[in-house]
């Protein structure tokens, strides 16, 4: 009870993991593209809110430590998911660049949990100004060569800018919910989304939109040519056990019926 929040975060199983579907909308059918792992801090603490958890980690200068704890917990939690399911994991760019042997350790830890690299996507986010570019690129190359997909996370807000795209050379651009929510009735949000679609195509990347909460926004992003989406309109985040009960995990025939 008297320990600091940082000490509590180090306790075994302090970090809880939930998963939220990233849904493919190709050819008018909804299917599961990947599950994004979302972490929550210890129950009853301020870090139960993920925004506070990561803001706290950054202010304490321990984002790398917290990243590594989270990745360990996520891989353990994802071990029970079906082998056909891809898992998307958030990581700070500074962790990728500054942790010696990050790529090899990540791949090896995933393998220990029975998760092959082609099932993995890393969403790179950054709130610090700079990282060591040579090690960052080398680490991403190792991951990409193994089959891990790379995404730029939170595109459109904070430090997730054009430089991130240049540095990461991503397979996916994940557009932040701030840009997405309300896009159907906001010409500025819609224009930003349209420009991201153009940018993504020019970079041979595929856009993913976060924060879809209603059918109107969903239909709008589909009309803009975006066919990977995530948000409460499809499902909230939930435990690994619960997420496998979603319609996406049903057989093809059952899925047609459910959609």
């Amino acid at each position: 009870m008297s320990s600091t929040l940082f000490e509590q975060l180090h306790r075994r199983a302090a970090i809880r993991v939930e998963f939220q579907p990233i849904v493919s909308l190709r050819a008018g059918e909804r299917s599961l593209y990947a599950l994004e792992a979302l972490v929550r801090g210890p129950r009853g603490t301020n870090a139960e809110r993920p925004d506070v958890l990561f803001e706290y980690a950054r202010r304490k200068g321990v984002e790398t430590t917290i990243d590594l704890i989270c990745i360990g917990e996520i891989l353990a939690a994802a071990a029970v998911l079906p082998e056909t399911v891809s898992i998307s994991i958030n990581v700070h760019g500074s962790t990728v660049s500054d942790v010696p042997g990050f790529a090899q350790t990540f791949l090896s830890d995933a393998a220990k949990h029975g998760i092959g690299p082609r099932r993995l996507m890393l969403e790179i986010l950054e709130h610090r100004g700079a990282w060591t570019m040579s090690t960052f690129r080398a680490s991403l190359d190792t991951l990409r060569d193994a089959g891990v997909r790379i995404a730029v996370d939170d595109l459109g807000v904070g430090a997730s800018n054009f430089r991130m795209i240049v540095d990461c050379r991503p397979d996916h651009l994940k557009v932040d919910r701030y840009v997405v929510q309300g896009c159907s009735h906001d010409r500025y949000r819609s224009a930003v989304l349209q420009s991201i679609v153009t940018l993504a195509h020019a970079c041979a990347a595929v856009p993913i939109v976060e924060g879809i909460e209603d059918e109107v926004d969903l239909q709008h992003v589909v009309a803009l040519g975006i066919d990977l989406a995530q948000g409460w309109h499809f499902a909230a985040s939930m435990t690994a056990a619960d997420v496998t009960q979603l319609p996406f995990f049903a057989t093809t025939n059952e899925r047609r019926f459910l959609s």
Partner: protein
Amino acid sequence: MPACGSPVALWLPVTKRLLIVDDEISILFALKRYFIRQGYAVDCARELEEAEALAAHTIYDLVIADLSLSGAGSAEGLEIIRFVRRHNHHARSIVLTAYGTPHVEREARRRGANAFLAKPQQVGNIAQLAKRLMEGEL
């Protein structure tokens, strides 16, 4: 029943939100319990970074902060007040300290504290002061 389209939400009372920062859990516990019973929304933190992480994502109407979270001579409480004010210029503040001197109090007020209380202090005294600050009486 209000007429269709009337702005019902505007008539609902707005819950004031407090941030209480102290390294002593007993003080946090007592103040949080008191203010929640009074109908306020309350967040608590024990460290500078924890308080700032909360304030980076939340607008607070009042902050009650221990001046020194890492021992005599430190002044994290004033940093927290300044940080909260960056997000809400109208936020009011109370500084608590066990190391109060007239010089420290003058410095705290110069750096934005609205009120200054020596520790130990009865919860009732802190609560009364907080209420007066939030209602604009001070």
